[in-house]
């Protein structure tokens, strides 16, 4: 009896999830009248705007990941080692981006860092890029911090630090050669998640007026019929690849530890 209900619930859910995916794939192949073809994909991939915006977002994602790792790993490590009483407060701060909608945060940026303010980041292209990267780092903070903090929980931070120090290592050496390799899996899963978030992000890039992939997607959606479906399939594949890599990395280490 329970099993029948379970199958019903599962089937219902799977149909709901499968239909949009099938529909999108089918629609993306419909560009040529009367037969299925990859024309929409060919069009999209050959579009110079696609290449530009996509590479811009990839670079932004990579920059965000590097910055996020440099910010989060030392902080999480330090809080665990030296300031454990601060942990709840730091954790609360890192979860705030889940509470405050991104559109509100970027609205604040525009008001705080406009050309007539004390820190006119939006005055230059580089400054705006920097601001966008800080924004992305803020959006991914909850995921990055949680991933790294969970990774740190599974190792003995105090002992590792003392061992490294008694061998004469400085703080940079400890972080780069002792702590980071030990939490690499956690860092990588945070990194892939960050990549998935940044690559298609729309609101921040649109309001800061940067040529990112998300605004390009929106523009295509407003003007074209079949290309958006092809783009949606590509975006889904990217998300899937990021999640697959997280799984792969964590499975890889689990095997490594038992061996």
């Amino acid at each position, binding site marked *: *009896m*329970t*099993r029948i*209900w*379970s*199958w019903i619930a*599962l089937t*219902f*859910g799977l149909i*709901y*999830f499968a*239909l*949009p995916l099938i*529909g*999108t794939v*089918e*629609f993306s192949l419909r560009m040529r009248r009367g037969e299925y073809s990859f024309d929409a994909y060919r069009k999209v991939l050959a579009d110079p705007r696609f290449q530009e915006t996509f590479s811009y977002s990839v670079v932004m994602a990579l920059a965000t990941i590097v910055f996020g790792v440099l910010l989060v790993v030392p*902080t999480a490590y330090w809080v665990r*080692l*030296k*300031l454990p009483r*601060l942990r709840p407060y730091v954790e609360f701060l890192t979860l*705030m*981006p889940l*509470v*405050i*909608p*991104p*559109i*509100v*945060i*970027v*609205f*604040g*940026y525009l*008001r*705080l860092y406009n050309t007539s303010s004390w820190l006119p980041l939006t005055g230059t292209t580089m400054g705006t890029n920097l601001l966008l990267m800080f*924004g992305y*780092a803020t959006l991914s903070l909850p995921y990055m911090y949680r991933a790294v903090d969970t990774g740190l929980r599974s190792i003995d931070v*105090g002992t590792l630090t*003392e061992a490294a120090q008694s061998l004469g290592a*400085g703080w940079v050496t400890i972080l780069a050669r002792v702590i980071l390799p030990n939490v690499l899996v956690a860092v990588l899963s945070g990194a892939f998640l960050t990549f*998935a978030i940044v690559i*298609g992000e*729309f*609101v921040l890039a649109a*309001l800061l007026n940067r040529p990112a992939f*998300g605004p390009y*997607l*929106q523009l295509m*959606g407003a003007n074209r019929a079949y290309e958006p*479906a092809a*783009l*949606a399939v590509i*975006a*889904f594949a990217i*998300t*899937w690849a990021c*999640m697959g890599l*997280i799984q792969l990395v964590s499975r890889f280490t689990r095997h490594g530890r038992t061996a």
Partner: protein
Amino acid sequence: MTQSPPTAPPGQALGSALRWLGIVPFVLFATLFLLLPTMKIVLGAFEAPDGGFTLAHVMQLFDGPIPDYYLISIKISLASSAMGCLIGFAMAAAITLGGLPRGIRAPLLTFSGVASNFAGVPLAFAFLATLGRLGLVTVLLRDWFGINIYAPPISFNLLSFSGLTLTYMFFQIPLMILIITPALDGLKREWREAAEILGASGLQYWRMVALPILTPALLGTFALLFANAFGAVATAYALTGSSLSIVPIVLFAQIRGDVLQDPHLGYALAFGMIVVTGIANGLYVWLRARSERWMK
């Protein structure tokens, strides 16, 4: 503190100062790019043009069409989180307690991780390609069954309350599955056995034992899903343009300058959003703390 600090190179007195120095970069970052921007919005909502304090902007939220924007936003968020909770719970229960083959669980959880992150503009495209006027499901229903979902009596419209709710469910359900599966795993087998020994039926066990234990977790997740839907801009914007007036879209148009009104209205709209998601998440934190007492 019991943990003795390892011999810090620069000496004892400096070591204590260094301890606080370690989180300065993070505090600086959080202040500049999280706290100050938020405070700017909150203060701006109460700031008069001459710099004094005023409630005029916030009072605008209760004026004209603005309450309707909030109402439709809250309705869509409530509906999509309710459906997300319901279906997500059913699916999570199916893979944890439902006696399904064990091989289903891991792929479904992986897929949930993917789908909960598949939001924004591409999600809108996917639903347009499926349930839009030329979408796969629309066409198949018309050709095979002669049902036109865009004509009365259904009069479905993707660019509406029901359409947006249906679309949001695509990331709400997986999020529910991801959060509630550990809670369902935490239901101890002894509780079920104890209930059965005392003569409870399956339904009674759920109604009187399992659901009361899960209620805080369920309500808490509901609050998180609500905030998740309430703040979403990209999906709705790509689906409807500016035609459906939900709060995030109106705010987006305000910031873009499409609607030239009082600039302080933007502050007030954003402040209203913080209040709504703040309440939802405050509820989440509180209920979460309550539910974790049972999960030990």
